[in-house]
């Protein structure tokens, strides 16, 4: 299994170099990024940590408090290097995203673009060992993943919709999700166990919790909303309800499942 991460790093390096040689000269409207060597990416990282991390986070994963988006997956406002360049250069009107200093050379903006580009994984540059077709079969059959997860409107409601999971998670992260689902659990998928003033206890996924109220979905997909002050007890389990697949699938089957999940994108 560890071979996946080594392969990805190797392929990423090839991809970075490949893009360098493929880039052509020109302006911001029509050219690729000329500044995307390892040196440039590192320079972009330094600029990012200094100028951008206050809002976007040191890991570029965004910040709900500042409203700054996660930059490590698919970007909602730009689909190309040029688009990213223009956002950095001009900002996003009506948001806290300000333009960079007017006297910042284009070359430095491109280095920043290269760094942001390095945070997401381009599927075209990844050759995974598993089989997408076999992974799709495992998802529906042996893995029984679709009893909890939905893809394109088909499946269960007890886990995240995976229709476009390949845009948000890279293969390494997907591997971790499958083998160690408790390692990173979004609060939406924590479990709440509540007992009301009449002694009735219900358990469900934590759809939303705030200072004064709580909403859960139980195993039968029933939705419940409670004012906290009317509850006798509230218990929160900050773990995933998903089992680890270490003992359920073989190494090669996990590779297949990763390949399938990573293929799930909008264009498919």
């Amino acid at each position: 299994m560890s071979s996946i991460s080594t392969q990805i790093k190797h392929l990423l390096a090839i991809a970075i170099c490949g893009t360098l040689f493929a880039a052509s000269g020109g302006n911001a409207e029509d050219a690729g990024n000329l500044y995307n060597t390892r040196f440039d990416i590192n320079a972009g990282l330094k600029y990012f940590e200094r100028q951008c991390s206050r809002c976007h986070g040191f890991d570029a994963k965004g910040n709900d408090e500042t409203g700054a988006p996660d930059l490590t997956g698919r970007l909602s406002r730009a689909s190309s290097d040029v688009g990213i360049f223009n956002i950095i250069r001009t900002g996003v009107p009506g948001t806290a995203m300000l333009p960079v200093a007017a006297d910042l050379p284009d070359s430095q903006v491109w280095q920043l673009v290269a760094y942001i580009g390095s945070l997401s994984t381009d599927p075209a540059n990844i050759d995974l060992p598993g089989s997408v077709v076999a992974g799709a079969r495992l998802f529906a059959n042996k893995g029984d993943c679709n009893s909890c997860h939905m893809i394109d409107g088909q499946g269960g409601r007890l886990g995240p919709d995976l229709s476009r999971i390949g845009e948000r998670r890279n293969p390494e992260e997907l591997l971790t999700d499958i083998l160690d689902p408790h390692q990173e659990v979004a609060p939406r998928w924590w479990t709440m166990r509540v007992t009301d003033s009449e002694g009735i206890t219900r358990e469900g996924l934590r759809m939303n919790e705030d200072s004064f109220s709580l909403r859960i979905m139980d195993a039968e997909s029933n939705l419940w909303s409670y004012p906290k002050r009317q509850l006798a007890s509230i218990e929160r389990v900050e773990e995933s309800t998903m089992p680890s697949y270490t003992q359920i699938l073989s190494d090669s089957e996990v590779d297949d499942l990763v390949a399938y999940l990573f293929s799930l994108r909008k264009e498919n």
Partner: protein
Amino acid sequence: MNRSIALLAPLCLGLGLTLPVFAQEDEFQTVITPAFSPVTWERLINAEDEPENWMMYSGTLDSQRYSRLDQIDKSNVAELEMKWSYQIPVIDRAETVPTVVDGIMFITEAPSNLTAVDARTGRVYWRYDHELPDDLRICCGRNNRGVAILGETLFMSTLDAHLVAIDARTGNVLWDTEVADYEAGYSKTAAPLIVKDKVVTGIAGGEFGIRGFIDAYDPASGELEWRTYAIPGSGEPGNDSWSGDSWKTGGAATWLTGSYDPDLNLIYWGTGNPGPDWNGDVRLGDNLYSDSALALDGDTGEIAWHFQFTPHDVHDYDSIQVPILADIEYQGSTRKVMMWANRNAFFYTIDRVTGEFLEGDAYASQTWAQGLDPNGRPIRVPGMAPTYEGILVSPPIVGATNWYSPGYSQQTGLFYVTSFDGEQEFFKRDEDYEEGERFTGGGGRYNQPMDAFHSSIRAINPATAQIEWEFPIMPRSSAGITTTAGGIVFTGSADGYFFALDAATGEELWHISLGARVHAAPMTYAVDGKQFVTIASGNVVYTFGLKDN
């Protein structure tokens, strides 16, 4: 005449009487006489005697945010209903605390605009749009927190580091003074403070290697009267607390509003982090007067005393909190104190005459200090400075609290603060100073979801520095607090609630979902004998009152 009506309100409310009703049939005809009369210094000194008005950022010069209005009390607060809302036209984050004078409300808006509305209806009198350059150097969003008023003039900070004077009747600009060069990283977001015949104001830019200062301006001309640097210059006492020339880019911004004691003629003001924030290697020493409370002479700005909360800070624990002044019973005698819940997770009670440390203790989760020594200086836990690889420290960069106003109740004698128990991985980076560029030397990263941390409103006894009660909220809140003679603590939360707690017990009395983050402090006022409570949530200013009978 309006002034005389206004003065009746506190008397009647204090006696629990109902005020005469002024032409209630049509709300647009209730003003028999013109609204608004000039705000003299005498009115500002005695602001608590006219609680129908909220004439400065923190309500009164002592910044207690305690209102004598008691029409809304514990018995009827659950009946509050929305009276009006005002939609701020520029979409951004509202951190404004409105000012109300004789029925007119002044609302600052992002990025640096100002609107005057009828405080009974929310309908606009005038609006001022401040023209800004498009290459601002700001660390943390386009915010403005409020205005100061003297006579018929409003004073407002702007993001391009200007101080503008605006005619309160028309919105016309009277003068526009550049306080500092925005291209060098200076900016302004806080409400100024009127001290006698001067406009006192601070500066932001602590993440850009500025050198912080506190200024006083002539309200008539906009001329600078005095400037006190928050970092001593070469040859001045304290300058040797910085290695080499690091003092020149040492930060110590003064980006919030201070307080004033007329009897002592002392201005109290907090200072921010030393720069670069997270790399202390390049600025060895205590770094005076960063992360400090400064007491300044009200006429000259001369520093009377200082108290440094976090010497040689490497975690961005700004002492940018509003100082609350009160006279409390302490160990058998009445003491003039300043109360301070610091971003570094410690609460302090300090003698505001001398700067002597009286009491202090942690009020929120922290791992960086073993405690405070008898002088209030932190006893550091070794090895908690940021590293290149990252080190986990509590509180996180945002602190156990931050700029959002705490409150104090004269009824309970308790201090109230919005607090956060969190932790974060701190990183150090090597950076060279470049004018106008960020100069922070690192950053931070959360390793858990925000919902995994604990947030609460905490009530602290200033005589013991111990927590009396706490009310849990979620997630991390940046809402301020206001207390009233009705026995209530009003505040909000990041999940979009506005709510009222019993000031004595912390029991919830009322809440309403406003749907967007509360990023400001509430304030209360009265017009025509009716008490209102106002809070900004998201991009909207909401005003609540009791049902009309």
